[in-house]
């Protein structure tokens, strides 16, 4: 976006002295402080999710009947909820659920979508037509409607919500992969490899796939925040994580009933979602600039 960013994003430049990977990363990060901060916050959330039992020492499930809907204090920095549970603990543990749903659903979408897109783009013809018509139909279901439908079929739970979100995101990856493969399979070096006797599988895995990884990575940084919000929405509607598990979405659902008496219940889970998705998007913007030097 800024001239310096596009210069640093132009990929490995011939330097006087070969810089180490850490030094290069630091130079690039300095060019885009917002993206670097975003990436840092995402890592913090990952650490929070992993270290939840040590960061949040108060039990997120066990309520205290004497502490119902108490405003923030030193003992409960984010206040307590309608069952006297510590909101801080629940927000920390919620990071685990959100990260799980966000990352695993997109991994699923990639695991299903990329091979299908690869085959469609590589072989083209009738198979491609069938796959693309199915993908079109799949895409016609709004993401959330599809997820709601799938959760209805499978029953509400974190795993099922993750699967539903992943399957909802899959057509995007089929389309993206197919488009990229169509372009790359036409390159001379692929023809060259084929002339040298490389089989289809080898061409796909060794020559085509490595060249689309960066685009897939960029798409993942766009999809993961959407998946995180989708999990929160499903849980908010009561179709995702079931109580008493601490999901940011279920917490907001409860909070809506107590807006007049306990507004803090609605602040923190939302701030958590917002800062996580914003950081992901910032980091993703930086990554996009790094991998795609076109200046937009």
């Amino acid at each position, binding site marked *: *976006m*800024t*001239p310096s960013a596009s210069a640093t994003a132009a990929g490995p430049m011939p330097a006087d002295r070969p810089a180490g990977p850490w030094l290069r990363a630091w130079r690039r990060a300095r060019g885009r402080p917002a993206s670097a901060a975003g990436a840092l916050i995402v890592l913090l959330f990952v650490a929070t999710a992993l270290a939840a039992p040590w960061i949040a020492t108060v039990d997120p499930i066990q309520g205290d009947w004497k502490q119902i809907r108490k405003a923030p204090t030193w003992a409960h920095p984010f206040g307590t909820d309608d069952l006297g549970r510590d909101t801080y603990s629940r927000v920390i543990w919620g990071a685990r659920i959100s990260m799980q749903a966000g990352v695993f659903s997109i991994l699923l979408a990639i695991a299903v979508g990329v091979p299908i897109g690869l085959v469609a783009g590589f072989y083209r013809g009738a198979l491609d037509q069938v796959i693309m*018509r*199915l993908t*079109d*139909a*799949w*895409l*016609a*279901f*709004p*993401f*959330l*409607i599809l997820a*709601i*439908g799938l959760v*209805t*079929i499978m*029953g509400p739970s974190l795993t099922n919500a993750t699967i539903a979100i992943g399957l909802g995101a899959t057509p995007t990856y089929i389309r993206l992969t197919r488009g990229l493969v169509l372009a790359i399979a036409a390159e001379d070096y692929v023809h060259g490899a084929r002339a040298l006797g490389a089989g289809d599988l080898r061409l796909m895995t060794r020559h085509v796939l490595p060249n689309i990884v960066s685009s897939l990575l960029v798409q993942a940084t766009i999809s993961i*925040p959407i998946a995180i*919000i989708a999990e*929160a*929405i499903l849980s*908010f*509607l*009561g*179709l995702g994580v079931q109580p008493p598990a601490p999901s940011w979405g279920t917490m*907001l659902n409860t*909070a*809506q009933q107590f*807006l*007049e008496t306990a*507004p803090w219940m*609605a602040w923190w*889970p*939302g701030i958590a*979602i*917002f800062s996580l*998705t*914003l950081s*992901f*998007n*910032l980091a993703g*913007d930086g990554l996009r600039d790094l991998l795609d030097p076109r200046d*937009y």
Partner: protein
Amino acid sequence: MLEFLVQRALISVVTLCVISMIVFTGVRMIPGDPARVMAGTDADAAGLEAVREKYGLTDPIPLQYLRWAALAVQGDLGESIRTREAVVRTVATKLPITIELAALSLIVAVGIAIPAGVLAAVRRNTIWDVVTSGASLCGVSIPNFWLGIMLILFFSVRLGWLPASGFVPIWESPLANLQRMLMPAFVLGTALAAVLMRQTRNSMIEVMSADYIRTAYSKGLAGRVVVFRHAIRNSLIPVITILGLQMGALISGAVVTEQIFVVPGFGRLIVEAVFTRDYPLVQGVVLITASSYVLINLLVDVSYSLLNPRIRIRSSAGDA
């Protein structure tokens, strides 16, 4: 041109067929016996059998699908288990509310996104660009249901300016209707605005670097004239496509927004139908949603080719 339209329409028909199959199979995959749901919990074996006979549930699945699809094409999507009202009727009463909400949020979105996007592109790499791009990034990142809750907290609970929820039909009291629609429309509109703004900025930047714009400048036209008379028109063409593709997001957004603000529209109907296990209603509503998405995008494609003659020419040249 005609060939392009026919081809596009045929693809849409195929997509609609696949959609109907997915919906039909999906609903049959929901655990539970539909005969039991329709007959009620106190029905005996003979009663269940009678229901199965009546609705043809004993027939082979492909036959059931064809019967259902034939009725669906004629506009008969069965009746709700809960209210015994025809699904099409239920949808017809709920849909106008959501269409009003969508139209209002579209006004909000376009009203914010186009000026902001144009400003960001024209004043590229200035503080204006940074601020509008930052706002757009926040708009994409903020979960709209949380934004809704925060608006209720601020404008209804704290300030008491707007009613927190509920719905008044527009023909009863336009003012009360608008008061209750304002926050939902804003919530739904900002999410859309964020996406539209990015697209407007990008396509405006592209257009501004085109030769004809340089020509316009070198003719000595004022910057204002170039931007408003020459650049905006062309840069809005891709924005229209994005608008079509965002219809799905708008419907998803309506589901959540209507839930928060208790607006009795189409989105809330979907959630209600799922929770009450009203399968014919779920089936009908999902089918209508997906079909309208396909039709809207067909219309977008058609209007796109009307707006941009290059596409018509290219497609007919490609076909020849």
